[in-house]
């Protein structure tokens, strides 16, 4: 019986114009956008490869350790699944300096500058966005007359004259519509995967296919949720035209208006102004360190004169070629530090006696720098959290009141392009910085002659720990997507129960 019902509904749906149009338009949009995103991904990958190679070479051109600033760079590779949900993958910086003068964060990162800034004016449309807009609309179009239509035409009455449970009818309608909606979803995904495999730059691993499975599952739940919303409206209203109007406005509100409205609202909520105070604190710590350092230099009978009475950058020794003063001062991201040093190709015999003193000084200076960074990080980390992460997370949480937001969050988590995944990368960079510092400590590089002079052996960059970053595994992605998936599932179940109750009690 149930099968007969499903077959009838399925045929009804499949033969309609709306089904053909739905399949056509979904395919068109998915294919067009896959092509665009694929090119974009390839471009970013090329930029990543060039930049990685370049910084590898640039680091090896340096002969002394102190000149590793700006040369030891960690690069974030583009995520191939960003084609399915771009998330923050493209927006956030992908090139970050590793240095003992600051703790690397998302905000310190720069972008590989291969793209035209004016192209950022156009939103990149990923496949999740296409599904989010189109499939939800289609689900509503399939659903609005599911019950109200039959009631209007009187066919519902006819069906109910047979000894069929009402739940069966509901279930048959749901299953057949979902089967119909699955067609454009799967075909278009298949096409886009075929397109991806034609590209030589993208390799999808088994894990990636598991992630894609997760995206399909999420899409299914999302579509089903919108279908149930439509059915609910259809069960509540007596006339199809009213049901249709309500469906369209609900769609417009949930997909188009609510996400933008709520994020604008988050934008205008006042935030605690911790930025200025935190920045001043950080600056004070550095200035204190600077004072101590200068005090020490001035009181030192040998080093003082070499550094222009404790005021200069680096030291003026015989054979010294360059001095540098490196500083960053960005109040908006609470970044403040300065470092000085010098480079000597070959230290002259006259200055030779001072070398141990210099080494000793640099041990103090570098260690103190690392300590100061550690102290400022205790202020900086919570402040950055309050200024950037909290509002962003608040926005993301509020977005989840709309199924569109839930869907976006879940697919982002599956694709591995959400904020947590990006933070994974920067945590890896922070660990890497720690590893480099440990290496410097163990090998006594901060106090070595090679820190500033290139005459007794040069810096051995190959012995330095290598940076490597692996995208988090599927289990982590799944764990991150699960809460949203669960929410989607629960709303589905609740809605189905509600519809069932309404339908069972309704008079035909």
């Amino acid at each position, binding site marked *: 019986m149930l099968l007969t019902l499903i077959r009838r509904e399925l045929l009804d749906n499949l033969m309609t114009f709306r089904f053909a149009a739905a399949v056509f338009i979904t395919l068109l949009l998915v294919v067009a956008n896959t092509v665009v995103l694929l090119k974009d991904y390839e471009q970013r990958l090329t930029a990543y490869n060039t930049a990685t190679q370049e910084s590898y070479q640039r680091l090896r051109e340096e002969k002394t350790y102190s000149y590793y600033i700006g040369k030891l760079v960690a690069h974030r590779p583009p995520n191939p699944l960003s084609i399915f949900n771009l998330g923050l993958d493209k*927006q956030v910086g992908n090139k970050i300096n590793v240095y003992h003068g600051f703790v690397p964060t998302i905000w310190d990162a720069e972008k590989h500058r291969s793209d035209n800034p004016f192209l950022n004016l156009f939103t990149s449309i990923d496949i999740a966005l296409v599904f989010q807009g189109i499939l939800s609309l289609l689900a509503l179009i399939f659903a609005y007359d599911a019950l109200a239509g039959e009631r209007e035409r009187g066919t519902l009455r006819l069906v109910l004259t047979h000894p069929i449970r009402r739940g069966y009818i509901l279930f048959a309608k749901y299953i057949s519509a979902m089967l119909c909606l699955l067609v454009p979803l799967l075909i278009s995904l298949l096409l886009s995967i075929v397109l991806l495999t034609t590209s030589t730059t993208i390799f999808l691993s088994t894990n990636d296919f598991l992630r894609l499975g997760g995206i399909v599952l999420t899409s299914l739940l999302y579509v089903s949720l919108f279908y149930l919303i439509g059915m609910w409206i259809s069960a509540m209203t007596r006339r199809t035209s009213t049901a249709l109007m309500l469906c369209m406005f609900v769609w417009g509100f949930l997909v188009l208006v609510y996400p933008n409205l709520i994020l*604008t609202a988050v934008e205008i909520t006042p935030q605690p102004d911790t930025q200025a105070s935190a920045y001043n604190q950080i600056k004070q710590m550095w200035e204190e360190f600077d004072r101590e350092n200068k005090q020490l230099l001035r009181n030192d009978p040998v080093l003082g004169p070499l550094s222009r009475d404790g005021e200069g950058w680096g030291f003026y020794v015989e054979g010294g070629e360059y001095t540098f003063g490196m500083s960053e001062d960005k109040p908006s991201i609470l970044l403040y530090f300065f470092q000085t040093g010098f480079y000597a190709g070959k230290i002259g015999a006259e200055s030779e006696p001072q070398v141990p003193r210099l080494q000793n000084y640099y041990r103090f200076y570098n260690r103190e720098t690392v300590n100061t960074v550690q102290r400022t990080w205790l202020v900086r980390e919570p402040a950055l959290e309050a200024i950037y992460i909290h509002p962003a997370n608040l926005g993301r949480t509020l977005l989840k009141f709309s199924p569109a937001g839930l869907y976006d969050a879940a697919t982002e988590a599956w694709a591995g392009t959400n904020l947590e995944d990006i933070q994974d990368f920067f945590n890896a960079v922070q660990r890497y910085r720690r590893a480099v510092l440990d290496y410097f400590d163990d090998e006594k590089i901060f106090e070595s002659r090679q820190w500033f002079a290139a005459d007794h052996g040069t810096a051995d960059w190959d012995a330095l720990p290598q940076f490597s970053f692996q995208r988090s595994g599927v289990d982590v992605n799944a764990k991150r997507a699960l809460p949203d998936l669960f929410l989607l599932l629960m709303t589905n179940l609740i809605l189905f129960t509600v519809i069932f109750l309404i339908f069972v009690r309704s008079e035909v």
Partner: protein
Amino acid sequence: MWHIAKRELYDNLNSLRFALATVLLLALMLTNTVLYLREHPKRIQAYHNAASGAVKTLEGRSTSLYRLATEGPGDLHKAPSLLRFCAEGDEAFLPTHASGANFVRRIADRTPIWRMGYPQETPNLRNIRPDFATLDWAFIVGYVLSFIAILFTFDAISGELERGTLRLTLANAIPRHTVLMGKFLGVFISINIPFTIVVLMNLILISTSDAVQLNPEAWGRLGILYSVIILYICLFIALGLLISAAVRESGVSLVVLLLIWVSFVVFMPNTLASIGSRTLVPIAYEEFWTQRIRLADAARAAYRDKYGDSQITPSVHVLGEYVTTEAEEHERYNASYLKQQIEQGKRARAITRISPAAIVQRLFESFAGTGFERHLQFIENAQRYTREYREFVVDTDRADPESLHLIGIQEGMSQKPVNPEAIPKFKDTLSLSRDFDAVATDLLLLVLFLGVLVSGAYLAFVRLEI
């Protein structure tokens, strides 16, 4: 005709969609107002601080003409638009300033002359919030109002056809075009009533607030924007009537309209732009940078070949010529790269003109003074100012008979102090006529689209068999 329009209007006024549309528009416009009134004073304050800081820095350099010639005018800031509530123009994705400064290596132990640079970073780099569209007029009209227009028109003809009332109407001695016009007017007025009310509310709240003063020019721009909105609404009503008459079934007509709407309004403007931008790709940034370094190295090598290392000081005349040409060449090279990028942006935008929604977005941005076209005007202003500033330095130097007139060489320039008041200051201005020129084609296209759709709707309706 008026009778039909009136009937349509009454029908709509009592309908569910009218109520929902009004509530939706009201909520959106209120958010828009609150957002603008909160953010705009901050933006203005930040701009004034930055601009006055830049002027102070510039005046601080007036101690000698040499400093002015080598250090340059400093940062030039882009003035925020008064009408940002009409179109945000994705300003967060555009650079906020140009920088006329000295940021290259020293050459032949000389400080080189300043040059104009256009930074590529955008304020959006540090943003980790979810992406969203600001609720400006462009969004409310482009997306929401067009959506509402579709919902008002999809059953205008097919619905009556299904109910059979169209037959009844046409049984009277009314020509068909009058019926169509009546329907058109009815829908038009019923969409316009809530929209005009919320727009008025928006404008009244903004203009009565102390934080913002709308000047007559701004009102003129708002007037133009309002007529653009009218055109846009008409366009979607005509589209709705056309499909409604051509398809005959309201269910199908809605599906067709929605799919057209989704493709043209939501997806096309962005997807087409990305496809279009591939047809005109500037050289990669790395390539640009290598070439730039190669140019500088070649110039330096040529200079060294001629005059040896800095051991024997060549005559200041030669040096003066060298530093000047080096700066000019660098600036020209930068400008040519910027031009390539702009051309790519223009190409990408030109292709999106197939979609009326993209056209309207451009019109909004241009008349609100935000976005891409506005940024181009800023760049033009900066370039004009660059010339002015250079001329000022040369002219001031020329006025001093003791000077050797060698710009960029300390001993070759006028040693007299410069009057800080006399240094030209950067003013970022907007010209309405230029805005108008930039989008004249778009305006024309919009009218053409409307013409095609209206005549299409007319033909479809006249040939409709009932």
